[in-house]
């Protein structure tokens, strides 16, 4: 009963927030249709799928687009009542790298910057190699947010570890602190910096990226607010990713759109978390690479095993 009412509440909230979504996908375009006068003065907007659209200035309804301050405020608060988790099925990954592509597109990353990186792994000398997609683990005991001197990276109530690149001073302590090498830095002007100049910063996608600041996987927090799955999850052709809400105990597969019980999925498949012994309490769960659906190809590169 209680669960139901919360679910309903979330639905209404989700819908209303969806309209208000950043540079608001459909909400914004609907509002455009209602206005007739044109000034010829165009403004660039970024949709939540990472597309840049041009809209006439007169067609903008300010109420539909949260201001930078408002965006940062709700970005820091998180999506109420949610507790996001990801499950990665290592037996399904065949290194298609669609997740990496979608992610770099969404977050405007340079080719060498990875919010999610598909690694070639081998646990011991004689064990079978496998592919392991590695996003930010969104730890519940995050070493990175602890060391940030200015609260530019922080843990939200819905479990996501986010970055405010309007505040980041670029000290890179969080990179040193992260044992998963999940963080990247904008060593130069970000990709397409000119194209996105003047676009309002969206904290939940960390775009546009800024020179001299940190970036990392955000579980596509902006898409979650719109009721969509993260970019990488939706882009995977092989059913590797499950994503959902731990409070609801439900995760959805990005490829098949099948929804299953989170607790059963990780129990049945003996899921584990990366480097559990460090006590970081990751929110990304891995299903072991057993009965792999494909052969491992290529050489293991720069593996740190002796």
């Amino acid at each position, binding site marked *: 009963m209680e669960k139901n009412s919360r679910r309903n509440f979330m639905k209404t909230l989700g819908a209303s927030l969806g309209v208000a979504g950043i540079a608001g996908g459909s909400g914004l375009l609907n509002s455009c249709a209602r206005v007739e006068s044109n000034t010829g003065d165009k403004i660039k907007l970024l949709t939540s799928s990472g597309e840049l659209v041009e809209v006439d200035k007169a067609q903008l309804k300010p109420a539909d687009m949260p201001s930078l301050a408002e965006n940062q405020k709700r970005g820091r608060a998180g999506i109420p009542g949610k507790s996001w988790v990801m499950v990665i099925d290592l037996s399904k990954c065949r290194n298609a790298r669609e997740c990496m592509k979608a992610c770099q597109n969404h977050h405007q990353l340079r080719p060498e910057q990875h919010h999610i*990186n598909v690694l070639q792994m081998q646990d011991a000398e004689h064990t079978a190699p496998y592919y392991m997609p590695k996003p930010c683990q969104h730890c519940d005991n995050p070493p990175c947010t602890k060391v940030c001197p200015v609260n530019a990276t922080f843990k939200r109530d819905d479990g996501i570890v986010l970055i405010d690149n309007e505040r980041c001073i*670029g000290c890179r302590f969080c990179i040193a602190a992260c044992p*998963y090498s999940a*963080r990247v830095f904008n060593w130069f002007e970000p990709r397409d910096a000119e194209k996105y100049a003047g676009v309002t910063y969206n904290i939940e996608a960390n775009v546009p990226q800024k020179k*001299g600041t940190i970036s990392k996987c955000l579980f596509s927090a902006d898409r979650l607010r719109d009721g969509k799955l993260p970019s990488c999850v939706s882009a995977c052709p092989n059913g590797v990713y499950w994503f959902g809400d731990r409070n609801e105990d439900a995760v959805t597969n990005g490829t098949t759109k099948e929804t299953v019980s989170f607790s059963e999925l990780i129990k049945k498949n003996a899921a584990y978390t990366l480097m559990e012994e460090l006590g970081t309490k990751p929110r990304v769960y891995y299903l072991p690479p057993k009965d792999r659906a494909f052969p491992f190809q290529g050489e293991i*590169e720069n593996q740190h095993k002796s």
Partner: protein
Amino acid sequence: MNKIESPAESRKMLDKIMTDLTRSITKKDELTRFWFFILIMFIIVGVWGWIIQIKTGLGVTGMRDYVSWGMYIANFVFFVAVSLIGFLISSALALLKISWAKPISRVAEQVAIAAVALAGIIIVMDMGRPDRFLNVFLHGRFASPIIWDVTVVTTYLTISVLLFYLPLIPDLALMRDHMADKLPKWKIKLYTILALGWKGNPEQYKIIYHSMRILMLLIIPVGLSIHTVTSWLFASTLRSGWDTTILGPYFVAGAFVAGTAAVIIVMFVYRVRYRLKDYFEDLHFDYMGKLLVFVCLVYLYFNINEYLVPGYKMKLGEGIHLRELFVGNYSVMFWFVQLTGLVLPIVLLLFRYFRKPFPIMVISFVVLVASWLKRYIIVIPTLEHPFLPVQNVPDHFKHYSPTSTEIMITIFSFVSAMLIITILAKLFPVITMWEYAEEKGIDKKYFSEKP
């Protein structure tokens, strides 16, 4: 100390002390001008490098997403380390009433001020967004070791400046009263302002002694904190090589080695350049040599703990790190630091000959270079070996090597530190004159006499 009874003798002696100890201030020659010229040239080049870095981004350095801290941070740790000597000599030794260290305390404070000031500048130069430096104060999160570091470094700088300034006040009054004919007007004016109307009555001396004592006590926890907290920037992470509880005392011990070496070098330069043979005596170098042996031995003990214990177990991550140091890419640097920079100085300095001014200066120089390299191999090799494999990135992400811009900016830091020390030496006596005169048995009443 023998009291000098005759007024004439006292006045003559005071006059000689003043002439000798203000030689650094009165001396004006081509070499001084050339020295300033060289320093300023390098500083301009460094600032130019920094401007390029700000315009292009930190990508002009050799740092990338895996080795995200490089030479700047190593250099920062080095300067924090060197600055700790101010605490050791002008507080710890003074409180233990070790009188031979007294004339050295101002040199130690000069080095401390220059080093800690530069540490602050280097850390700003390492920031991706130096324009947002004020965020540290606006949005400071007290749970971050960086905030602790900012707090203790600024506190340490403040106390060091006070420890430099307070015993300087009677000296400033001496120069104000006695040297008006020998020095340019602006310097006398500066001394008059800074002397704060010093008259030299017993109450004033009492205030100085009293406040010096308080500062000496205050700087002990601050001094220990500054390098301990700096070590926690590393120890608070989970990475192999940094994730060790010994890092705090290990850094403090290493800091004394670097600082003692730096002070010996500066002492030697003053002795030769300002003809202060009778002030920085052979005896001082001898004692400083013994001090250096002592701090090196302590540091060696920590080094054995730091490398032998994990080396015995060879856990996976630690093992990769240690192999890299012992026999891998950093082995030359590692063994140079351990053997030439630590073991050899200990052995050599046991012999009296090597504690003579020139040999000990050369040894100190080697120790100082090794101290710098030591910080380099504390910071970089650890970052080159994260827990997860480094894949799908260009090759230059995998190994760090500093770029010319980084080297330019690092040279800038050294040169700037030397400039600060030079300016301090050109403005103020390098030994506390009144303390020295008192030690020689001259009564305080002669200090305030107008010539």
